[in-house]
């Protein structure tokens, strides 16, 4: 028989003004199973909690109901108090007679009757409460960082500097990401590679960072503190341990005219290559699609000239399993392409800009490569079509961004600033040139940002035209830009030598596939969703997975680096403990009843349900049942409502508890 203690709080006068607390205590005291019932001015105060603890000990109480404010307010307080008096904290429930009763009703009689019923309901519920042990899970203090751009690099360095091992996985042959492609950076115009490459070298030399380049995530299993990640190391055809990075193979490779994607196809590279001279690691990779050896079987020059014998044509993809406790996702962005989109894509291209078929219409990243001292033109601005220096250049902002008719309604955040930077770089290099910018608004929130933008107009003579461009077309060797200037309300036409499009920032292609492997959610554009837009901006709803950089939404470099360090800090917080504790509100499977229809697995938003084989002593399969991994379960209970035989039950919200409440009414 339960010995339930009921404690009715006056909350000063907040409750007792409308609810007759003494009558509540008296009435509830008559309920079967209630051994003790009292009222007190402030239950949450020290003396109030003391009263509670004393009663538990002296009255040998088995369960406790505190009738007071909302459990969202003080449930933790009272459960702690109950625990310190030697009871399991989950044997304590709160009856909300303040927010749900005394504060919302005026009639004292009505409110008192309602309070009695609410407390009675919780008394019936608490009778069915069970002792719930706190769940602890061990923490593997290693972290995985996906993506080797500035976000991934920063997060990896921070975590490794804090003393934890990091596995950094990058899809391309080198780390560096988009930042390595940039020429100079706003708002200080320092050279991107100058500030980036030292960090890349730090990664390569860090004793606690394990770097996998030319590698992808194959498969992720497990949960916070205990992930098992399978990494696919794609066949590089060059043995990294042997290669000294001397570069002879690249010099001797007979295939030389392959457009280099790092240079936005403006420069050429051989079939065995590193994407750029400062690549980390400085180990080449063979592009098997274009290599003569792989295409025809003949050649083999690189292998012959390689001193250390690092070239291996037989190399195959390797799968490596890495146990980690936390994951930082930093997969970055792609740029919107104005080319015609395949049928079925919800995002459209730009027919009015020629669908990418006018050669001197380029995007911002291509301009970065043109302006970069280490780029294909050595930093000289030239037209891709004929190599001439453009004297009239038009920049168009918001291409794809804020363009609902193209399927994207968000602002890409960085374009206003980098276009301003482009006009400056252009003016520094082409003194007699004129830059025009078509823009909707200039969005320059950030330290020294607006000053920078003003400078591009006031000192660097860029002409800003507020309006949109309706069409671009080739006319002789010029590109006619048809646009509007809405400040004066006229149509304008500019015959430009080159047009630079500030195209929208989009998540990486395949971001959705990776999200499905990781079990994290994403929005309709495939940007990854944070757990809370304001208060948990670097965590995913899936515990143990954190976000850094533009994979979560468009970001500039300072924001990306800040978020990366924040994600690293979250990982360190997690790693500060050896074991994780979590509220034991998780689902459990009653294996005797389970028939293995796996409806629970189908509806589980967390992927917490696994299939478990039950075998007899001879090892014969008896049946396959569901198993809920308590480390992964979020505790929503959707499984239980869906289970036809109710063979899975959510602790803390069992059918027994709920039916007891309904039956009490």
């Amino acid at each position: 028989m339960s010995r339930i203690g009921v404690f009715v709080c006056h909350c000063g006068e907040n409750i007792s003004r409308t609810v007759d607390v003494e009558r509540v205590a008296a009435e509830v005291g008559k309920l079967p199973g209630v051994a003790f019932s009292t009222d007190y001015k402030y239950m949450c105060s020290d003396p109030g909690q003391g009263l509670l603890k004393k009663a538990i000990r002296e009255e040998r109480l088995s369960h406790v109901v505190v009738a007071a404010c909302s459990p969202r307010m003080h449930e933790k307080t009272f459960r702690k108090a109950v625990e310190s008096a030697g009871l399991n904290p989950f044997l304590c429930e709160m009856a909300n007679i303040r927010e749900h009763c005394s504060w919302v009703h005026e009639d004292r009689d009505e409110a008192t009757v309602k309070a009695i019923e609410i407390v009675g309901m919780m008394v019936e519920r608490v009778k069915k409460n069970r002792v719930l042990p706190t769940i602890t899970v061990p923490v593997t203090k290693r972290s995985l960082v996906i993506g080797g751009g500035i976000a991934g690099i920063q997060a990896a360095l921070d975590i490794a500097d804090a003393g934890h091992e990091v596995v950094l996985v990058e899809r391309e042959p080198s780390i560096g990401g988009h930042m390595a492609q940039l020429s100079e950076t706003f708002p200080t115009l320092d050279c991107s590679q100058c500030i980036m490459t030292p960090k890349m070298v730090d990664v390569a030399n860090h004793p606690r960072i394990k770097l996998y380049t030319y590698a992808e995530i194959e498969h992720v299993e497990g949960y916070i503190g205990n992930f098992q990640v399978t990494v696919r190391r794609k066949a590089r055809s060059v043995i990294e341990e042997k290669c000294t990075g001397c570069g002879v193979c690249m010099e001797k490779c007979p295939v030389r005219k392959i457009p280099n994607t790092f240079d936005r196809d403006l420069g050429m590279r051989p079939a065995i290559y590193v994407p750029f001279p400062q690549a980390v690691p400085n180990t080449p990779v063979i592009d098997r699609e274009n290599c003569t050896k792989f295409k025809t079987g003949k050649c083999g020059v690189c292998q012959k000239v390689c001193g250390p014998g690092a070239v291996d044509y037989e190399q195959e993809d390797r799968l490596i399993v890495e146990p980690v406790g936390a994951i930082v996702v930093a997969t970055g962005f792609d740029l919107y392409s104005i080319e015609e989109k395949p049928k079925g894509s919800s995002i459209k291209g730009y027919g009015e800009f020629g669908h990418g078929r006018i050669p001197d219409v380029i995007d911002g990243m291509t301009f970065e490569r043109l302006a970069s001292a280490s780029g294909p033109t050595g930093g000289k601005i030239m037209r891709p079509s004929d190599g001439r220096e453009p004297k009239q250049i038009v920049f168009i902002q918001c291409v794809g961004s804020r363009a609902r008719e193209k399927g994207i309604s968000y602002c890409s955040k960085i374009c206003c600033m980098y276009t301003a930077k482009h006009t400056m770089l252009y003016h520094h290099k082409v003194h007699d040139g004129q830059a025009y910018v078509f823009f909707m608004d200039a969005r320059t929130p950030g330290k020294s940002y607006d000053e920078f933008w003003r400078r591009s107009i006031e000192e660097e003579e860029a002409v800003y035209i507020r309006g949109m461009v309706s069409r671009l077309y080739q006319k002789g060797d010029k590109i006619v830009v048809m646009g509007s200037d809405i400040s004066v309300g006229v149509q304008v036409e500019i015959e430009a030598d080159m047009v630079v499009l500030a195209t929208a920032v989009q998540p990486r292609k395949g971001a959705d596939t990776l999200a499905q492997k990781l079990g994290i959610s994403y929005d309709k554009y495939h940007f990854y969703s944070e757990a809370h837009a304001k208060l948990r901006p670097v965590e995913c709803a899936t515990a143990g997975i954190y976000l850094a950089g533009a994979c979560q939404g468009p970001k500039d470099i300072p924001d990306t680096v800040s978020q990366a360090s924040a994600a690293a800090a979250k990982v360190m917080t997690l790693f500060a403990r050896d074991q994780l504790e979590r509220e034991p509100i998780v689902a459990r499977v009653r294996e005797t009843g389970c028939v293995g229809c796996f409806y629970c697995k189908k509806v589980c938003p967390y992927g917490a349900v696994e299939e478990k084989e039950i075998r007899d002593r001879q090892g014969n399969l008896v049946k396959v049942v569901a198993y809920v991994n308590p480390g992964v379960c979020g505790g929503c209970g959707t499984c239980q409502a869906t289970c036809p035989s109710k063979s899975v039950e959510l602790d803390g919200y069992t059918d027994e508890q709920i039916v007891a409440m309904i039956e009490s009414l």
Partner: protein
Amino acid sequence: MTQLIDTSIYTAVTEAIQGEARRILSEGSVSAVVGYAAARRKGSAQPVVITQADDSGKLIFSAACVNNLAVYLTKAKKDIPKNGKIGIVVKGCDLKALVGLMGESQLKREELYLIGVPCAGVLASTILPDTALTSGTIASKCRECGERLPQGCDYTPTVTPPITPVLEKKYAAEIARLEAMTPAERWAYWKEQFKKCIKCYACRQVCPFCFCEQCLCDRNKPQMVETTPRPAGNFAWHIVRAMHLAGRCAGCAECERVCPMDIPLNLLNRKMAKELKELYNHEAGFEVREKGPLAMYDEKDDQSFIK
């Protein structure tokens, strides 16, 4: 006007089933075949499990072969030899149940050998087995049948496809009649129907989808559904059952056939099927689906009923 329905192919079908059963049993590719055999009363049929090739001659197919044999692969499967594949004779309607069971991890396609039966219809449960199949004696479910030739079976006899005249859809008509009533009239209708229930649970026993080892309605901690055959308990039982079958039941109507009190149980199931078709364009039993309509969602689902 009563129309005679041509069942002449059943003779050829019977021979074909026998031949195929003999072949697969003697080859050893299956360990047992679940099918129909003649029963004691003239013209009647009953389910049978044969394990010997020599017993193949027992198998028949006729308009009296009403049972949905799928049920023998779930609850009763413990009695059927476990090693190896099992052959089973399936009509189009039975196949839909098997397909549903595969989607719910209860059966594996590779463990079954499906002998599909071209079916012109079977007799209603109220008709004596030796009666000719006509538009008057045909089972209600066959009136709305769209799967006379089961698809995707391992073996289907090559016979002229059965031609059944278009008949009035009784369930659809009855649902429309009930829908036109006021809530109070509907309540009165179902109250009378459920009052009859004696809680024999034959509906549950015969249903391929009631495969739970312990039914929710038999649990007493907590007692979610009253077990006594009082109207309150009966009402709850039938509502819970209809809800559990929603999106899964493909309409074999076995529950209705075995009900000793003649409660129109399939009507509830057909109503739910109709609603899920309208809401989510879902029809049970046509393909093996990983998720049924109530185990998935679309962010754009209708929510006009939610304030």
